[in-house]
């Protein structure tokens, strides 16, 4: 059995090598690996890739074949394997780009696009929507204008909540005033600011939020700043819920002055509904309650200002 696989692989690789750049007929190693995926036999697919690599080194076809294993394992809900295949494909593709280019190498384009897409899909499937979108947005910056740009853009849009009704904010627990619900806030533009007590990037976002709030409060801008517990406080020491809540209140007081008059919802439910696993994450909800911006990571004052002005 093993001999058969080896012979098959060597043939695949040889044939594959002679058809570089073909867009319509997949090269042989890719075709053969896809056949194993159709049978859900990922181990056989992995063996084909390994043998091909041993015989011919890293080729664009081989990387593309690996990217199919990422997609195949993702489709089969094998998320850990999909993450590993995506990461391996990504690393090999990025290394190959040192000498090749996405414009001239279709296999490499397919491989890198699929690796990034699958990585993002795995994150989203694990409930880390903001991590997925963030990852895609950073890759879009890197591959701006390249052949994979559109593919990444499409995925970022699909995985974000843009265009969807904003999920409700859970406020069973809060600090300060009872927070208004999104229903009550309809008619306002609402900036959701997901933050964490240990998060330096969240503190760095404060001046921009303060500035836009001063500027647009009278035109109906409101800020809601959900946070949650992480099970620890200073020095990474494990802390019981009450102690951590006290710590959150203290950080709020020290670093988030603009939230003094706003109730701060506390709890994981809102984060889960919005798929927020990265902080800060900024979400803009329009006057009708529809998500118009879903931004994992900081926004400059100018960008935040522009995004809000569109909705006022």
């Amino acid at each position: 059995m093993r001999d058969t696989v080896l012979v098959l692989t060597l043939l695949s690789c040889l044939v594959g090598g002679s058809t570089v750049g073909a867009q319509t007929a997949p090269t042989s190693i890719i075709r053969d690996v896809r056949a194993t995926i159709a049978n859900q036999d990922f181990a056989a697919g992995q063996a084909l890739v390994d043998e091909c690599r041993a015989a011919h080194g890293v080729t664009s076809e081989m990387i593309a074949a690996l990217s199919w294993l990422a997609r195949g394992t993702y489709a089969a809900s094998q998320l850990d394997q999909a993450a590993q295949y995506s990461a391996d494909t990504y690393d090999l593709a990025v290394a190959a780009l040192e000498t090749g280019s996405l414009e001239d190498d279709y296999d490499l384009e397919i491989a890198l696009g699929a690796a990034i897409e699958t990585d993002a899909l795995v994150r989203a499937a694990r409930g880390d929507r903001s991590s997925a979108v963030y990852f895609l947005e950073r890759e879009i910056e890197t591959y701006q204008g390249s052949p994979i740009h559109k593919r990444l853009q499409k995925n970022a849009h699909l995985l974000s909540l843009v265009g969807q009704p904003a999920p409700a904010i859970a406020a069973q627990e809060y600090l300060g005033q009872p927070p208004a619900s999104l229903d009550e806030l309809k008619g306002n533009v609402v900036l959701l600011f997901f933050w964490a007590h240990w998060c330096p990037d969240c503190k760095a976002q404060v001046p921009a939020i303060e500035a836009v709030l001063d500027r647009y409060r009278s035109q109906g801008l409101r800020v809601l700043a959900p946070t949650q517990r992480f099970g620890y406080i200073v020095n990474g020491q494990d802390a019981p819920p009450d102690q951590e809540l006290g710590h959150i209140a203290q950080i709020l007081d020290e670093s988030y002055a603009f939230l003094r008059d706003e109730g701060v919802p506390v709890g994981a439910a809102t984060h889960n509904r919005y798929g927020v696993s990265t902080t800060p994450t900024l979400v803009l909800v329009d006057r009708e309650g529809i998500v118009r911006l879903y931004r994992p990571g900081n926004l400059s004052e100018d960008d935040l200002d522009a995004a809000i002005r569109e909705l006022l």
Partner: protein
Amino acid sequence: MKLLSSTLLTAGLLSLVSFPASAQTPASIDVASQGPQVGDRIADFRLQDQAGTAWTRDSIMGPNGALLVLSRSVDWCPYCKTQMLDLQSRIPELEAAGLGLAVITYDSTDVMADFAGRRGITFPLLSDPGSATIKAYGLLNTTMDETSSNYGIPFPGTLVLDSEGVVTDRFFEEAYQERTTVSSMMLALDASSPPFGASRITTDHLQITTYASDVEVAPGSLFSLVLDISPRERMHVYAPGADGYKVIGLAIDPDPLLVVRPVDYPASETYFFEPLNETVPVFESPFRLTQVMHVSAEREHRAALAEQESITVTGTLDYQACDDRVCFNPQTVPVSYTVNLRPLDMERANVDGAGAR
């Protein structure tokens, strides 16, 4: 001594056979301060091995130096005999590293020959009559009564020597049952071979390759769990000293059969976060966490250990990652390692006067 053994056997206390009464309690002496220290050149010696061949400090050397192991006895000390089996199994690794190997004990050459023959030991087991060399090195176990048959044994441990005989590293433990495995030493010396059977774990923030230093360990063998961690592009995780963050750490699930030491961290890097003018200790480049542990050598665990062929160590890698723009929620990654258990070598020497010298 033989009479004592027979009596105990008759009494059915088999597990006690190899433990002379005076050796039950670990020495409470600071062994780190005993004997040649790093930077010292050890004195020369001339000692006979199990085959009657004489060896000196210079003749045990490989091209890059040698491991000189001070051992209690290859007659009655099960931890010592078991360590010899580990050493024998790692000779190719030591040769590849250009390191010679010799062991010094107070046993007679007859005892050495008996043990070497029984267990296929090919490296020199050096007999130190009257413990003259052990004493000269300042490694005599002074907690032993001079009238005891155990008087003359050293504090057990390993001196790592360069080719001039200068100590470059030491592996000595407080507890007499504990021995650092060769693989764990090689890790500490940064001379280990590429891992075999390592697991790879990919998270959104890290690529992790992890493995146990040894495939097989005995009670008391100090082995290492290794985590080679590469933060993904632009990512950093928090290092010890980062106030307010979850510092990366390995939490081994409690198991009465395991004794776990603190995680060994490399030097961290400093991350400057400009918007807040903050500096914080992080790991941003690939780094290694090493977790040293050993299977319990306590008498109360012997029965439980005798029933299992392997031991599975489980735990979690906990960390928090940020890049230059966002922070990710704290993560918990499960890890698991299975190592085979090597029984302690309880067999005594079949030589007249063994142990009594």
